[in-house]
């Protein structure tokens, strides 16, 4: 049973790991391969700050809220494990700021210690009159992806540095199931007009005195189009750009100025911070995550694709819940192919 995963960002690697963990013991013939043209530190996941936080509203997409919760709980469970540092996993508290009262988010009971900001706290942020404080998690891509890669390599999963041009290409080589975790470039494999870039740009600075994340919201401009500051273990990420439909991965001087000025206004102490790096990336945005099976007929063979892409700006936030869902879909494929007597369970 040959399974090929396309994409080596957080979605591809975690889906691969989840599937291998659950099925390698049950399916002795399982061979897992990962194909990607970009590996860490050059994936979209590497550019993300790594803060676990969903969007403000799930737009009724309860499935995504559940995946987010499963991811948070999974990571929280790993917090005290010796692997946490290597994974780039740690707790972090911080602020979400608004210019007007807003309803509580779907994730208020998932994070720890969620509460509204007090008037004294709001004094820190002139221009903002309402906000939240909570403790969440950081999962830094630059550590997590190498950690996932090591776990996969230890398990004998093979990596191929290659741009896959079509699902067909893999099926004709004898692959039985393809996991499409190709993020932004899924459209190259199968057109999907719903998948659009949500371009972001960030400035990485040295500001180790910043111990909280600060995310501002401008309900008119939309998510991540308002300044945010996210301290990592080495660098602090400054951002606040979300440009729908912009495919450019080049840094823009105009966006740089907008990020720098707005973040320094938010946190005057940043004026003294040293700029270390600048990066642009494309959030693979979609009205909802595409996480589903697709059967593809090839002559008299039936090939299976499991799609797992379109996580926008919440890939890290939802990755493990999605990986488990992808693994469940894989389990049902195995059952149909009679590779498994019954699906392992009750809960994957």
């Amino acid at each position, binding site marked *: 049973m040959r399974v090929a995963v396309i994409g080596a960002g957080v979605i591809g690697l975690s889906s691969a790991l989840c599937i291998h963990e659950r099925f390698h013991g049950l399916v002795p013939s399982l061979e897992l391969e990962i194909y990607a043209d970009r590996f860490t530190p050059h994936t979209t996941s590497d550019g993300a700050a790594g803060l676990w936080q969903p969007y403000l509203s799930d737009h009724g997409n309860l499935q995504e809220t559940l995946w987010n919760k499963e991811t948070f709980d999974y990571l929280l469970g790993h917090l005290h494990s010796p692997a946490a540092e290597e994974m780039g996993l*740690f*707790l972090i508290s911080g602020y979400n700021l608004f210019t007007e009262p807003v309803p509580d988010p779907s994730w208020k009971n998932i994070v720890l*210690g969620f509460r509204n900001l007090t008037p004294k706290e709001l004094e*820190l942020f002139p221009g903002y009159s309402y906000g939240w404080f909570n403790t969440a998690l950081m999962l830094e891509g630059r550590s997590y992806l190498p950690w996932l890669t090591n776990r996969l390599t230890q398990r004998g999963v093979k990596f191929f540095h290659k741009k896959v041009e079509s699902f067909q290409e893999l099926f004709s080589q004898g692959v039985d199931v393809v996991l499409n975790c190709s993020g932004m470039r899924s459209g190259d494999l199968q057109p999907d007009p719903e998948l659009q870039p949500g371009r972001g740009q960030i400035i990485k600075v040295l*500001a180790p005195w910043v*111990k909280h994340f600060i995310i501002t919201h401008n309900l008119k401009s939309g998510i991540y189009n308002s300044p945010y500051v996210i301290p990592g*273990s080495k660098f602090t990420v400054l951002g606040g750009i979300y440009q729908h439909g912009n495919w450019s991965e080049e840094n823009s001087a105009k966006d740089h100025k907008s990020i720098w000025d707005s973040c320094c206004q938010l946190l*005057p102490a940043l004026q003294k*911070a040293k700029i270390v790096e600048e990066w642009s990336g494309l959030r693979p945005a979609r009205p909802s995550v595409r996480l589903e099976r697709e059967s593809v007929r090839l002559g008299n063979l039936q090939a299976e694709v499991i799609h797992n892409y379109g996580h926008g700006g919440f890939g890290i936030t939802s990755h493990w819940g999605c990986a488990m869902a992808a693994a469940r879909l894989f389990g049902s494929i195995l059952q149909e192919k009679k590779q498994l007597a019954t699906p392992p369970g009750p809960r994957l």
Partner: protein
Amino acid sequence: MASPKVAVVGAGVIGLSTALCITETCPSCSVTVLSDQFSPNTTSDVAAGMLIPHTYPDTPIHRQKQWFKETFTYLFAISNSAEASEAGIHLVSGWQVFKSTPKEELPFWSDIVLGFRPMSKAELQKFPQHRFGHAFTTLKCDCPPYLLWLEKRLKATGTQMYTRKVADLWELHSEYDIVVNCTGMGAHQLVGDKQLFPVRGQVLKVHAPWVKQFIRDGDGLTYIYPGIHRVTLGGTREEGSWSLSPDAGTTTDIFDRCCSLEPSLQGAQDIEVKVGLRPSRHCVRVQSEVLSQGGVKLPVVHNYGHGAGGFSVHRGTANEAAHLVGECISALQGSSSRAKL
């Protein structure tokens, strides 16, 4: 008295902040700081600098609260300015956890720190040995940066600073009109204060930049305080111990206790061990006194004995000491004008 000459003895957080307050309240004063140690070799440099007050048994609570409030307000403004990183002042959130529910519901300072509330059940799950806790956000003064920033502010006002060991306050009477005694533990010898006693603290300063939150055991013995570059792990409270030498067994014990609160500290690097003697007293001595010897008078303002709470109340006590200096100057000016008559 055109330009009263004030000597501040001591260059830890108390000496430097008191000197600065004096320059602010009495711009005509000429202030000189004298100390045998300056940053990074003061007791203040060993401390983490967390704004979590110590309760002095014999100082009225309202006075301690006032000191803390003034200090917090002062530092809060700096933390929110462009000078924050240079001054070493930053906000930090975290938890104080208790193995058994504390007697007092709310500490006196709960409405001064930010967002103070009891921890939720979910938050307490991170601390299986603890049953109760408080979550809040407070400020931290990193040293040396904060002391160096105070020194810089002082130099800008024209304040001179000299390395000098003062063995007797009377040494200063011919050069200075008023002496301010901010000698911390040194006051035991310098003014013979037997109510002052050391409480030895050993700490580890480690590299663990993923630790963004403080954790403190309500017993005050085990704590994890993340600073700008290093995390301070503590600690000990050894009353009556004068030893400034690090103890290896204590180092292991501190490390183990902190790792049980925060397991990821196992990965901490670059462990540095430091020892400081908290200059402890049942009440902080902020008081003026006129020393007298052979017909000569020497006004002295004392500001020492802050023990475990120096950073938390430093600005408040510095303000009070500066006010006392102002009173001494008025008294001196009063008597000199009487002398003229």
